[in-house]
């Protein structure tokens, strides 16, 4: 199986450790993962702000980077959702039928990390060790656009040493929402502050989620409050092993 990592623009520029964790995790599970360097961004920042024409180049580079792979794995529910649910829209708008066909080929093979591990590889125990008290925030696009269900929690529950505590009002949006975080800053921060409060209520040391952009938002508030709570991507928790300690 030829597997490609779609690292996402946010992870590439801001959270390279998450991409590295996916690589290590998949290798440990016997999957050789490739990183096609022609990839850039899924185009979601443009699409969700209403700039559909401006998203066309990103979708083009997406399909040209990932054509020919059996599976494309990404540590982002939001970007996987964008590939699966928005690329067709962008291609239609461009009027380029060839692009539309390429999208139809590539986008259904794009998987969010927990989907790939559970559905494609068929594993829930990835052999990780992470002796910390953790709470999990199911990001909206993972939850509702992709419907990943409890796959991340099943993966986390199998991590040795990890104590998973339930997050109150877990399914409420953290308020990031892409450019929403800037266009409606006050509302975004109000939503994030409630999320941060709920996280603090759990007594967890680490907040885990499958999208670094949401974590950047909630983590930014937790950091401003000097809460001492870390945020970590699911991939980094799953990649952690006893040997590294």
């Amino acid at each position, binding site marked *: 199986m030829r597997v490609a990592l779609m690292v996402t623009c946010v992870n590439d520029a801001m959270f390279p450790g998450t991409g*590295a964790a996916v690589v290590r995790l998949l290798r440990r599970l016997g999957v050789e993962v490739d990183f096609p360097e022609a990839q850039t961004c899924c185009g979601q920042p443009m699409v969700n702000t209403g700039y559909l024409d401006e998203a066309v180049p990103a979708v083009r580079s997406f399909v040209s980077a990932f054509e020919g792979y059996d599976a494309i794995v990404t540590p982002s529910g939001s970007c996987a959702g964008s590939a699966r649910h928005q690329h067709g829209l962008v291609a239609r708008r461009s009027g380029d039928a060839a692009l539309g066909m390429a999208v139809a080929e590539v986008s259904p093979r794009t998987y969010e990390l927990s989907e790939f591990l559970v559905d494609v590889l068929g594993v829930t125990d990835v052999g990780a060790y992470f002796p910390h008290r953790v709470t999990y925030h199911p990001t909206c696009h993972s939850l509702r656009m992709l419907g990943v269900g409890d796959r991340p929690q099943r993966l986390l529950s199998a991590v040795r040493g990890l104590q998973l505590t339930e997050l109150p009002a877990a399914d409420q949006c953290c308020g990031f929402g892409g450019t929403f975080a800037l266009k409606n800053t006050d509302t975004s921060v109000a939503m994030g502050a409630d999320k941060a409060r709920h996280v603090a209520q759990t007594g967890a040391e680490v907040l885990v989620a499958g999208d670094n952009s949401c974590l950047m938002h909630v983590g930014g508030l937790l950091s401003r409050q000097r809460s001492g709570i870390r945020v970590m991507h699911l991939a980094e928790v799953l990649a952690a092993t006893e040997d590294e300690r």
Partner: protein
Amino acid sequence: MTGTFVGMPAFPEAARAALADTQLRHNLAHATATIRGKRAAVVGEVEDWESLRLAGAAVKDRALRDLDQQLVTLEEQLTARGATVHWARDAAEANAIVADVARAHAVEEVVKVKSMVTQEIGLNEALEAEGIAAWETDLAELIVQLGEDLPSHILVPAIHRNRAEIRDIFRRRMATAGRPAPADLTDEPAVLAAAAREHLREKFLRAKMAVSGANFAVADTGTLVVVESEGNGRMCLTLPEVLVSVVGIEKVVPTWAELDPLLRLLPRSSTGERMNPYTSTWSGVTPGDGPQEVHVVLLDNGRSRALADDVGRQALRCIRCSACLNVCPVYERTGGHAYGSVYPGPIGAILNPLLKGTGVDEQTDALPYASSLCGACFEACPVRIDIPEVLVELRSQVVDSHREDRVPKPETAAMRGAGWMFGDAARWARLGRVSGLVGRVLGRVGGRAGPGGRRTLSRLPGPAAAWTDARDLPAPPRESFRAWWRRTDGRLDEEDQGR
């Protein structure tokens, strides 16, 4: 049309004021959580809720597909049963029709059944200008009207008020509108309801004319339907001699049988009840019983514009249950007034621009952006309106309406730049190298160490300040993922990776 409350600022600004009102936030969080809980419980009882949603959506879609024919059938059936049918293109026409009927009967006051559509067209204000007082008889609408306030929720227009505030409004204002509040009025819900009951009873018995909307209009039988919880509507529909019903053209349901899924979906989604307490139906005039003159105003007011929108058309399926408001995290924190319209929340964020058009005014254009696209609204919608999909489509229409602007907005320039950069991995990689350089510098001198050791920035200049006013930001890493991969082929341990 009067699509927005006059003089309202655009959403981000209105939201800021609402967010600062802690009493409002408390009232809303409490009320929406209560309704959410009730709804979830009764929806959970239905064995196949998803099939019911699909059935409800299909009924409305069928009606919308040949709306012209459905409306003609409706008109024929209503006329055959003794009603007078009027057609109104916009708010002004509809208001004029209602005022004409009132003048013809020389009435100085009318009683009203709670109705979104008459709020949409500003009927009360239009009648007031003609010297006709229109009295709301729904308890929550009465609170809003007496408080000289604006509604803030589709189902619970006074959701932003608590019991103490309502007692104060009744004490202060009831006397000027009719029967005064009793001197010993407390803020007990039953006591408040009893005061409203006495106050309204006088109005029901006195009024010669009533105005209603309709939840549904059945084409094949010429039947209008109102569902309600209090019975005030039924009083208005049966006691006065003249009845005028203003009905949005999207309310049509082709057949009587097709009401079935809708009447099951609505109460569970709306009030969290298995069945609504009152369902009233009327078809024209019944001699010797109920109103002896019935007018039906079929209103467009932007609905044909919405119908012409390939993606947005689905919003006309809306049955005004307000489930999307109660699950929306943006609505919960900002309240209904911030949307500047009688249709607030997620449905308002799409319905207002669809009815009014995009690129017309800033207030309306801000609404499709008043969402984090979390999708909770779509999940809750009983007729499966994909609100996030429509929001994105409307955002693209807002952007497209400004494509020819001589001076592009900074945002437009940024998005064009991003589009250009993401079209080529080499350009994107070059930016990553610059960012890595910044990260290296900041790693030594900037910010402070956050939990886990990474440098954190608390104050950024320019547009980035919108982020760091309230949130810290991790400093860029010294090496992008791409650069690390190229350097190591992904083979080195994490310790060696520049973070």
